[in-house]
């Protein structure tokens, strides 16, 4: 393997960029942002339609754009950006050229073609089936074909990532084990293979069914296997954004993981258990036993949740250790107070960490409890929860790392740095509002994927409590705020690429000195104690326990079921 490839060392950050990998990172990330813009704009329209007094879209457009919003914001934007993350975590961090770049480009184009086909089908109006597309409701065959083509492209990209790891090992571009961030990306890639395989198992027959070659698709079978793709794809996101949390802690603070062993074990729990979560969507389904539901919904005794709780300590813990090493030692929280809150890379990442844990993580576990799901299934609580995990967790993290990556990749300074400073707060507050108010409305029984919360056209009408309409109005306002934050992000990114002040030529080959690592051993026994983080973790646990039992109390008040 002695193919010569062009590469450069970034003069500011010392990062290695293979020419092909760099181009692919740029194209995947920018394409992702375009779909975020489209999907995000549709999302604002959703929030405004749910706002009872505003109710901006007619019913057919609401269901049509809700389908497109789910596809573009949850799948297309995130997977494109994850391809960029995979290439960065392999080629750049291991200082090796990208394996099979032509295949990686093929993957990119397949993803783009697939995404465009499915979007066109949805926007033409005959595939308003929600992105879950539960049969027997049928979409246009090209709707399924587009998703399949997109998935094949993503699979090719994932294998280019695996190939790059092999290449790095072969060429000995690093010594010992993979860096933790690359290990996390590997976790994401392994889950991606499982996810895409599940998608193929169910979507290929569904495509044939929509073409008339197969007579019947069992709806329960479809739902069970579809969610092995649908939920696992969100576990790719979790693994990817947790890896980026470690990455940002490293580049901003020079933070080292507290202990490699504990952090890697947490990722290993993800690989073993995170894929069982299809069951989260099947807790009030007929025909599946309670034993099956309990084992799977709890990721085999909550071991994947344990993994996330570990990252919840070790990510901020590594920052605390690095900050204390620098002398921010006063009291429990000086390390946090003196963090660079004006730097969007840090503020975005830290808000994402807090909101993913407190709003997304706790509610996800509670909603995924077999019996508690009875009072939450398919209510607005569900989108409330996953906007905290996917938008506050993944999207906000990807935005944060973009503030670092885009200037480095395009050799330009950030455009509108003043706005960039505020953007994570505007977006974060908006998303927190969306999440909390949808969950509040869901607790009062308001249905998800529902155009008319007044039931004006129903023969047998129904009124939600007045508080529900108030929460929906607050959700609309939060949607506007998040829309403002999201638009600011897209403007800053596009502006940086087009009009950002150019940095000097890429002449330097000597890497800039890497920041001094906070701790030198791989273990954490000899390192600085992190009492502040431990207190934060205990506050998290206290909230978790309290809210968990509050929901058992709610459940105990509904009619008796057996």
């Amino acid at each position, binding site marked *: 393997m002695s193919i010569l490839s062009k590469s450069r060392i970034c003069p500011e950050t010392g990062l290695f960029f293979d020419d092909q990998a760099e181009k692919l990172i740029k194209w995947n990330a920018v394409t992702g942002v375009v779909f975020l813009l489209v999907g995000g704009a549709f999302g604002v329209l959703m929030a405004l339609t749910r706002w009872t007094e505003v109710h901006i879209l007619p019913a057919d457009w609401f*269901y049509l754009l809700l389908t497109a919003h789910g596809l573009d914001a949850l799948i297309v934007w995130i997977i494109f950006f994850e391809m960029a993350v995979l290439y960065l975590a392999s080629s750049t961090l291991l200082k090796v050229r990208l394996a099979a770049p032509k295949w990686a480009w093929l993957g990119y184009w397949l993803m783009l073609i697939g995404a465009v086909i499915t979007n066109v089908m949805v926007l033409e109006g005959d595939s308003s089936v929600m992105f879950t597309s*539960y049969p*027997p*409701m049928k979409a246009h065959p090209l709707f399924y074909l587009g998703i399949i083509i997109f998935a094949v492209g993503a699979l090719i990209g994932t294998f280019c990532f695996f190939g790059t790891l092999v290449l790095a090992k072969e060429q000995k571009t690093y*010594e*010992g*084990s993979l*860096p933790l961030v690359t290990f996390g990306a590997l976790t994401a890639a392994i889950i991606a293979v499982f996810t895409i395989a599940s998608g193929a198992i169910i979507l290929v027959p569904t495509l044939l069914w929509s073409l008339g070659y197969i007579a019947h698709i069992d*709806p*329960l079978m479809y739902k069970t296997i579809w969610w092995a793709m649908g939920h696992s794809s969100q576990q790719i996101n979790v693994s990817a954004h947790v890896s980026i949390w470690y*990455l940002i802690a*490293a580049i901003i603070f020079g*933070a080292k*993981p507290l202990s490699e*062993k*504990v952090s890697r074990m947490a990722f290993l729990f993800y690989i073993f258990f995170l894929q069982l979560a299809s069951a989260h969507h099947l807790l*009030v389904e*007929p*025909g599946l036993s*309670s034993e099956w539901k*309990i084992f799977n919904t*709890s990721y085999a*005794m*909550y071991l994947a949740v*344990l993994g996330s709780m570990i990252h919840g*300590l070790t990510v901020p*813990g*590594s920052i605390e250790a690095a900050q204390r090493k620098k002398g921010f030692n006063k009291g429990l929280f000086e390390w946090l107070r003196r963090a660079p809150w004006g730097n969007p890379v840090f503020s975005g990442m830290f808000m994402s960490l807090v909101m993913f844990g407190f709003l997304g993580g706790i509610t996800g*576990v509670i909603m995924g*409890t077999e*019996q508690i799901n*009875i*009072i939450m*299934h*398919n*209510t607005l609580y569900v989108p409330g929860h996953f906007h905290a995990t996917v938008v506050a967790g993944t999207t906000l993290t990807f935005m944060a790392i973009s503030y670092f990556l885009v200037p480095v990749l395009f050799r330009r300074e950030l455009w509108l740095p003043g706005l960039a400073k505020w953007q994570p707060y505007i977006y974060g507050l908006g998303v927190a509002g969306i999440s909390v108010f949808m969950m509040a409305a869901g607790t009062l*029984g308001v*249905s998800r*994927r*529902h155009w008319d919360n007044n*039931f004006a056209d129903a*023969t*047998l*009408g*129904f009124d939600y*409590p007045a508080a529900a309409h108030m929460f929906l109005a607050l959700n609309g306002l939060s949607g506007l705020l998040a829309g403002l934050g999201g638009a600011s992000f897209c403007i800053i990114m596009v502006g940086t690429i087009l009009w950002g002040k150019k940095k000097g030529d890429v002449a330097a080959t000597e890497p800039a000195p*890497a920041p001094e*690592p906070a701790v030198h*051993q*791989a*273990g*954490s*026994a*000899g390192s600085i104690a*992190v009492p502040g983080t*431990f207190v934060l973790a205990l506050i998290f646990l206290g909230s978790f326990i309290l809210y968990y039992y509050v929901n058992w109390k709610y459940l*105990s008040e*509904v009619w008796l*079921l*057996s």
Partner: protein
Amino acid sequence: MAIHPPETKIWWKEPVHSIEIWWVLIALVWSLIMFVMMPYWHVYGEQNLSNEAYRVDPEYFGEKVEDMVKKYTIREEGDTGIPVVAPPVGSDVFLLARLWEWYPILELKKGEKYRLHLSSMDWMHGFSLQPTNINLSIHPGYDFVVTITPTESGKFSIICNEYCGIGHHTMAGRMYVTDK
């Protein structure tokens, strides 16, 4: 740093700080408590779904519903023509979902048990009893049997909360619960 390979090659033998060990143990115990809560509730809780479900032909299910409606209709709901059915306490009660209605309207007695059968005639639907907030998934071809005991009386609505096409938001049914 997390972007470099571990500085010690044999990183898995390095000792771990006690704060990390404590947190892993605390989190593990909490995970196990949450795991045990679900089987515990099956034994001591009163809100559990049965594991009883059957494959059913939609036409056959429709006939069972019609039989019940013929036998136990007590009135019609206003001028809608929808029958209100009061089946005997403890009996098998049938409720069907179809584009875009719940049929028929049931009238149950507070504090009494009923074996409620739920199924769909066409697409997937979501049974969402409001304001009580009980939510169940209804599939075509599956007879979902839930033993249900109303604990309050009054007028309740059944909303469809699984998207089922353009008329989805008009799909609302009703249920009455009377005091004994």
